[in-house]
């Protein structure tokens, strides 16, 4: 009994140490985002003598952060819309319609999860330049959609499979068509799944831009990371569920 308690205490201590190590780099980010650039260079670990809160407004202006966040958000929104609408349909069919070629389609999507950006970028770049579509938001969102599709399909499929078949059979007896069953019975029941997909796609497709001074860079990082961390902490359950569904075999 004594030994067991000792074991738990030791493990707990090590876990807390790991948490501190994990969060450690975030502390100087916060600290130095409110210091002057000179203060950062004199002693990066010292507490600020005054709060240089104008770092945030400077970072915002210097990196055109407002514009680039707005741009990213528009692309992210489009990507989330495209991904959720198309993969819901696909995942539903893979879960509920029995078609002989489905293993092939699943195999294709599985292979597609491993395709790196460097296998896509050169032809896509050439094509977009030729078509004058480089930087086009909708096209960019479609590329992201293609990249996130396999993951979303597998995740949503697991949610559709969890719906009891009886519900859909009852709707069928009541005379609902196949698409009505999908839209009015199955889809509302997988809302948490759709939210999870939206959340994870949003996290992956959001990146930011940077300037040159370290104090401003940290202010910039805080501006980018802050909202992400807050959203993550609020919706962590969905996020963790989504990640796990992708990899754990039950």
């Amino acid at each position: 009994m004594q030994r067991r308690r000792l074991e738990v205490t030791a493990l707990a201590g090590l876990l807390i140490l790991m948490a501190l190590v994990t969060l450690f780099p975030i502390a100087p980010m916060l600290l130095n985002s409110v210091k002057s650039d000179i203060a950062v260079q004199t002693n990066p670990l010292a507490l600020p003598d005054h709060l240089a809160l104008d770092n945030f407004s400077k970072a915002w202006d210097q990196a055109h952060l407002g514009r680039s966040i707005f741009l990213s958000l528009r692309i992210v929104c489009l990507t989330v819309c495209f991904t959720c609408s198309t993969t819901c349909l696909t995942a539903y069919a893979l879960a509920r319609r029995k078609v002989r070629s489905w293993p092939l389609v699943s195999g294709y999507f599985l292979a597609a999860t491993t395709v790196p950006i460097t296998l896509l970028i050169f032809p896509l770049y050439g094509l977009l330049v030729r078509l004058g579509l480089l930087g086009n938001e909708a096209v960019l969102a479609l590329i992201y959609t293609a990249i996130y599709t396999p993951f979303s399909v597998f995740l949503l499929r697991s949610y559709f499979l969890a719906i009891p078949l009886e519900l859909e059979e009852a709707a069928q007896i009541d005379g609902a068509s196949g698409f009505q069953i999908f839209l009015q019975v199955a889809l509302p029941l997988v809302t948490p799944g759709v939210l999870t997909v939206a959340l994870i796609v949003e996290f992956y497709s959001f990146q930011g831009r940077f300037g040159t001074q370290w104090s401003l860079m940290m202010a910039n990082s805080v501006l980018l990371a802050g909202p992400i961390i807050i959203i993550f902490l609020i919706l962590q359950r969905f996020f963790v569920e989504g990640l796990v569904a992708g990899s754990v075999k039950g």
Partner: protein
Amino acid sequence: MPPRPVASEARPEPVQGNARPVSRRKARDLSGWLYVAPSLLINSLFLLFPVVATLWMSLTSWNGLESPQWVGAANFQELFASSAFWEAAINNAKWTVIFLTVPIALALWVAAALLRVRRLGFLQTLFLVPYILPTVVQARVWQGMIFNPETGLFGWLNKHGFNIPDPLIATAFSLYGIALVNLWAWWGFLTVIFFAAFRQIDRSLLEAAQVEGAGFWQQWIHIQIPLIKPTILFMLIMTFVWSFLVFDYVYVLTDGGPAGSSEVLSTLAFRYGFERFEFGKAAAVSAFAGLLGMFAISFYLWLQKKGFER
């Protein structure tokens, strides 16, 4: 019910409805395909087509302006004869060895500890925080606040008598410096995955072992790890695939430098493409890395088919 896994989706499923009249089955199949069509269309247009185009490009010589010239395997022959290519490939191999061992072992251990000290289970959320940060933010924080000899922790340590160089600007350490940043962001993800897998193990097994006097280590080695072997295998295969594709951390932190010491295949491909406009060679490097990944996935599916998991 726990959500179903990704990897087992490729397993063939028994096809129902063979007894139905053929025409009705065809109608059903057709409507099924209609549901799948939008995803397949977007995916083949923006993913499959570029991949096929890259594979074809790897057999041509193309500067991005004139029309591509067919050169057969010449790009690959040149690559295999160049030291830059092999240095990058070796860096990928080192990267693979690091990521197949360190984060997996760490995550397995921390996940088991979280299971043992259930009250601290909430820590998994904290461990995941680095993973959700945009890569540029992670990179800038480590570059400026940890490694930097003037503004970082290392600079502070240097002033206080510890002589630690900035790994990102030392040829001997640059790759490991980048790996450290990626490890910091990555191990929490693995921990969450393994923690979830451990939680699916029947508790009575562990309790029985405890009654028999098995401690934390014995349970870990003899019960927990063997029981989640399929999940570990899946993460090992994915780690292998991703290690040959790693791009963003290297690109943002050192861009392959100093003096090419942290160059990996993907940054080399970028350099061939967007700095020297040798798109054929760039495509050949990417194809090489991509095909390695494909082999790994095929190997995994083959293992699965052989019934390794059952």
